[in-house]
């Protein structure tokens, strides 16, 4: 896939005049279980059709590692904002993309990672690193390299502006397909009780 992507990218950049430019996409995995990305991969053979229209330039599920996040058209984010590093990355993506899509319930509501919001951060850390039965060395990580946890886990829209949301835990591949193809066709996805699922 990596190879194909590279070549298409090359050909796209070479022959911009002939074929319409592909939509440049970045995806990001914040505090989530990666289930939404897995659901994206569940598009299966539809991915082939999708990649005729889009290029994924930056993502946890592509092999190329880029040092600097490129300018993209669409940013797709799974998971909520749990630590300072995630906040920094999300803000950077927001700066460098035109449309930001929150993918899945963690990105939209905070979902499971936000369960900790009912408790003070201090208690959460103590429970995990000091009181947990499996933890023999009682020590809360304090290396400056480790990004600090935010006081609350926040859904994306509390940190940056979000343009579209695709709910679901995880969203069904069909729903992801519907939203992406509608947006690529220049239409606004329409939601109703038939295609909407929160779980």
């Amino acid at each position, binding site marked *: 896939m990596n190879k194909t992507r590279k070549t298409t990218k090359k050909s796209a950049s070479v022959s911009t005049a002939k074929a319409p430019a592909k939509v440049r996409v970045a995806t990001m995995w914040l505090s989530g279980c990666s289930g939404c990305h897995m659901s994206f991969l569940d598009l299966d053979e539809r991915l082939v059709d999708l990649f005729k229209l889009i290029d994924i330039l930056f993502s946890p599920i592509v092999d190329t590692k880029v040092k600097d996040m490129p300018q993209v058209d669409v940013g797709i984010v799974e998971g909520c904002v749990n630590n300072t590093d995630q906040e920094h990355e999300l803000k950077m993506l927001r700066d460098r993309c035109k449309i930001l899509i929150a993918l899945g*319930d963690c990105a939209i*509501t905070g979902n499971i990672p936000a369960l900790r919001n009912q408790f003070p951060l201090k208690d959460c850390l103590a429970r995990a690193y000091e009181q947990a039965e499996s933890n023999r060395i009682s020590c809360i990580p304090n290396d400056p390299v480790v990004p600090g946890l935010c006081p609350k886990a926040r859904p994306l*829209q509390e940190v940056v502006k*979000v343009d579209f949301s695709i*709910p679901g835990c995880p969203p069904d591949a069909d729903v992801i397909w519907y939203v992406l193809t509608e947006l690529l066709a220049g239409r606004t996805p329409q*939601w*109703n*009780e038939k295609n*909407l699922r929160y779980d």
Partner: protein
Amino acid sequence: MRSETMIATKKISLTINGKACNGELGQTILEIARANGIYIPTLCYLDGLTAWGGCRMCIVEIEGSPKVVPSCATPAVNGSKIITNSPRLQDLRKATLELLFSERNHICPMCPYNKGDCGLQHQGYLHGITGIRYQYLYPALPVDLTGRYFGLDHNRCILCTRCVRTCDEIEGVHTLDVANRGIKNLIIVDMLKKFGASETCTSCGACVASCPTGALFDKAAAFRGPLASCQQVLTTCTECPVGCGLKVFVKEDRIVSVWGDPDSPVNRGHLCVKGRYETWAEPRERITQPMLRDKNGKLQPTTWDKAIAAIRKAAKDAQKAEMAMLVAPRVTNETAQTIKKFAGKIDRIGMYVAANEAALCNKPSFSADALRNLEDADAIIVVGAQPSRDNGVVAARIRTTVRKRGAKLLILHAHKSDLDKYANVCAHAVSLEGKLWDRVAEVLEGAQRPVLVYGLDATTPVGMTVMERLIRIFENNPGGQKLVHIGLPVSSNSLALAGAGIGAIENIGPWLDAKPLKLLHIIASDAPDGGARILEEERVPELLEQIPCVVVQASYRSALTEKAAIVLPATIWCEKSGTITNFEGRKLSLRPVLPVSGEAREDAAILENVFA
């Protein structure tokens, strides 16, 4: 109620979304819209409760008015033009939903009450809510799991107060209420108690059935799958003579939940703790195989053939005069017919009922429309009955009539119960002299629709005197109002069985002792105690010891089955078919909800096997 129906209703007509609709004066916009097939979203509205107007989902526009109004609480006006789905209304409803979603934990992946059960989720889907514009508050709210059958998770509560209104208006106990203001609003149990410590909660579970989200939930139903995915079977409760209609939710041959059948003319959707929970959410040791007592005195599983052969052998060794049958007052009318069919083979057949119940059953009189009469009553006199303990739905009807319609309540010669606190006159031990009867006459003076509910203890000498006095009061009443009598037994089918010729036994000891017995067949059926209650009767345990062959046909293991020589497994309420007759004289159907457990058989089928 009666006076209301006397007034001729005035017809009105109005336009809703351009459609001409007819209704009656006094109806709300929502009622007329629903009757005319126009959908208006609701969350806090529940048919049968007073309108609350709290959720603001049902807002509509009235032409000529700049305001939007809640259609559930706004009476319709003749000639008005209503709009239910303008873009403005949609935007307002969406904003309301987003505020609801933002306030507490309404995050579906964490909640078992999704996929069709949740009103909030459903409205979110209908309005295309994908994300919210407000900040989530994530408050830390408690979860009350101290109740025996259900829990309250404040995190999922939307404060629609459907539970509060149900508790107050249907069960009539007002255990639930709302405390604090604004963002601190909270549903409370009594005065900030937990369910487990509540003095007023009857565990009827009506609040659970009325909750539109997962805030109130059945413990036994949790994580067994959404109710929307269950099969629904309608049957009848056999726990008391009221005979409430049940709507049983079944999935994969397991009961997920039991609700009242809203279309039942008896209970109209309401249930008490017995029907709603005790029959399926209590651990009981089920008998699923026939058992024979071996030489060492232990019950051993056996086959039906061997068990029946053993009974037939015992019957062969016995004279007709040495055989008797005891019947639990809960078998179906069809089983009663089968019993009568074989009556010629047995010396005596009797029904074992509760203490003091025999006199009530042996002169069987059904009280037609008893529940409706209770609802319409302006004075209710309870003599010798304990509806709060024995017939929860009757107690609920009494409470609501007294509390909501202002009926007088007199409790005479009855045990203490929660009804006492609503009573105008309450005398547990009745003295036949003195001021009590002046007070009774004073309270009952002018009563237009008096109802007398009499139970088991009304058949005692004191109870009968009390009844006579009451009847005399109404004879002397210048208004000459007729006193409606409602006889309230405790056993589910005792009136019909006695009517079918299976007489109730007053004292089991002498009945057993009348002639020496060689074979005693006890049909305990699915009595929760396995029929063990008869062991509490005087001399019964020792008399049973003297009978060589005691056959117990029961669904649950008990002290009685431990005394049996042969135990036969009987089906339970949710496996039975047939009919029972309730205390109003209605013939009500039982339908099998689950497949029969193990080798159990229906009571009548067992009798056919044994005696045919």
